[in-house]
């Protein structure tokens, strides 16, 4: 299913966060969204998944404006894996994954055998079959991410929206999840932080800075040292991967603030380590 974002603007907390973003994602391709913290990735993804109405512009799935779809129809088109999770009440992992079947079922009644089979398959695919009977709140961060991804798969939608799905995952599970994403025939929009991982796993890369889409293209077109400097304020070196020959970025240091640059006041959030280093 093709996803078109047209002249999208979105506010969050009364503040404009996404400004005039247009992007087309052909059916079955993976679009990676990169950008510093606060650049509007999550807000853009919320608008694409219909969780927050944009203040201007529109989102189309195969040409259909998503505002024309009911909540339930929308949930049969797009599954979301987000950061938020309420933990007030405990829920077993299999039940959590089975929630993905809600848009396909009725308001009452049991989960069908078909539902349970789909849920178990999804758990097995993300390597979480052994967690089936555990309580979700007792899982580690990485285990949770995999279970939430299984729920998104169980929802069985042509479009997947993933907001930083590799958070908390160890490197093996990061690669596994992104390979899984790449292998599906679904249209995927995914926000990522690891530039090299994004280059390896996405068909196209969009870079957001201060709510604007400043670069869009194949990973090789988009990811170069100039962009890393201007968007993230980080000096880097591009090398060819000795085995695959693919371009790989090595990060050297924070860029020195340019005296004639009037906007160094918005550097990417420093990590704790960087902040304490004099």
């Amino acid at each position, binding site marked *: 299913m093709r996803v078109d974002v047209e002249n999208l603007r979105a506010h969050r907390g009364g503040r404009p966060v996404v400004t005039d973003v247009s992007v087309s994602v052909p059916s079955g391709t993976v679009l990676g969204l990169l950008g510093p913290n606060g650049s509007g990735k999550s807000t853009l993804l*919320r608008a694409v998944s219909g969780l927050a109405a944009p203040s201007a512009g529109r989102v189309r799935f195969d040409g259909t404006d998503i505002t024309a779809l009911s909540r339930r129809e929308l*949930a049969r088109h797009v599954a979301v894996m987000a950061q938020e999770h309420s933990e007030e009440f405990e*829920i077993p992992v*299999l039940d959590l994954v089975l929630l993905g079947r*809600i848009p396909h079922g009725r308001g*009452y009644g049991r989960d069908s055998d078909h539902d349970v089979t789909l849920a178990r398959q999804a758990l097995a695919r993300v390597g979480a079959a052994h967690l089936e*009977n*555990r309580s979700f709140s*007792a899982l*580690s961060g990485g285990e949770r991410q995999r279970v939430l991804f299984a729920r998104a798969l169980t929802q069985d939608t042509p479009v997947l929206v993933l907001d930083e799905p590799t958070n908390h995952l160890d490197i093996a599970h990061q690669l596994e999840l992104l390979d899984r994403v790449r292998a599906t025939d679904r249209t995927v929009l995914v926000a990522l932080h690891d530039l090299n991982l994004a280059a390896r796993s996405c068909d196209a890369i969009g870079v957001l800075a201060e709510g604007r889409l400043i670069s869009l293209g194949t990973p090789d077109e988009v990811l170069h040292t100039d962009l890393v400097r201007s968007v993230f304020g980080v000096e880097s070196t591009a090398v060819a991967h000795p085995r695959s020959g693919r371009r790989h970025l090595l990060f050297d240091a924070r860029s020195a603030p340019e005296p004639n640059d009037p906007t160094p006041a918005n550097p990417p959030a420093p990590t704790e380590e960087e902040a304490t280093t004099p």
Partner: protein
Amino acid sequence: MAQATNGRRAPVPFRRLLTNARPTGAPPDGAPPPTPSAGNTRRRGVLAARILVPALALTLLAVVVLSSSVGTIDVSPAEALRIIVGHLVPGMPWMSDGSLTTVQDNAVWQFRLPRALLAATAGAALALAGALMQAVVHNSLAEPYILGVSAGAGVGAVSFIVLGVGTSALGVGGAAFLGALAATAAVYTLAHKNGRIAPQRLILAGVALGSLFSAVTSYLTITTHAQNVFSIMFFLLGSVSAATMNHLALPSAALLIVGLYAAFHARALNALLVGDDAAASLGVNVNRLRSGALVAAALLTGSVVAVSGGIGFVGLIIPHIARIIVGSDHRRMLPVALLGGAVFLATCDFLARTLADPSEIPLGVLTAMVGAPFFLWLLRRDRADSVGVGR
């Protein structure tokens, strides 16, 4: 088989560290890998619900019959059952063969049975209302009265008594119902902002309005004639002692309607367990569900408060007990909570009128005496810290 065990042996202690599951008592060294059924809370919950629902229904029947037979006029449980069946099924031989006296018949059919049934209905309604409230405000400490419903009902009823309109049960009940609905409407309006009902704002608005209403009630109580104080206290503490079959109509109808509503929205309520955004992305219209469930809970609570006053803690404790036993899946939890509430309150009422015989303990006092210690335990055990205002 042996290979599988070998392959899994290494991760077992590590996995044991990761899960903070309760220790099963099995020795960690050389223990076989956990079988799929070990620690299966899900399957245990399903099984518990399958046993508990019929068990609670039978217990409810037993308590109602027992409650109908105990009192100053001698009626055996068997006779009580015969009287009840005789009234429901026409043409039973024992109704006309003189084996039962009119006094016995009146005691059971006019006084004890309506009372036991009202207690059961009120308990079921309050438990269902509590379960709905806790689900839609994402808060395990929520209960039916948190929206200021009982405080609003209190103002309605007490104003009615103090203004001298009368002390008829019907009038006081009607005033209480109006007060309850007005309070709910006020809290709902206050919590509604930017097209969204924020759970946290809802709770805080309810608590604040509840305090305001309680203050009004206290002021009215302290400044009124002494003769009114007894009626006021009787209402505020809650009682089903004046029950007649007519009193049953309003709460029963509310229970039926809301019960059906809850049954059709059980899966959507499950989705709400994992958060508003997640539920929305699963196709649930969160605002509509929250509004619907709040109105449903207010209807239940208002109709109960109108006929039996503010009976505390049922709506808080019963859903929690149900959740602990059968898990948080509403398709299992709601029926267990509903029946559990009925059994709990019918039993409490039975105790309330027999423990201190011939006088009577107000029902609200008894439920609170059982409920308050549980609530305190919940405060210690539950993640009360995580009920952050900032969320």
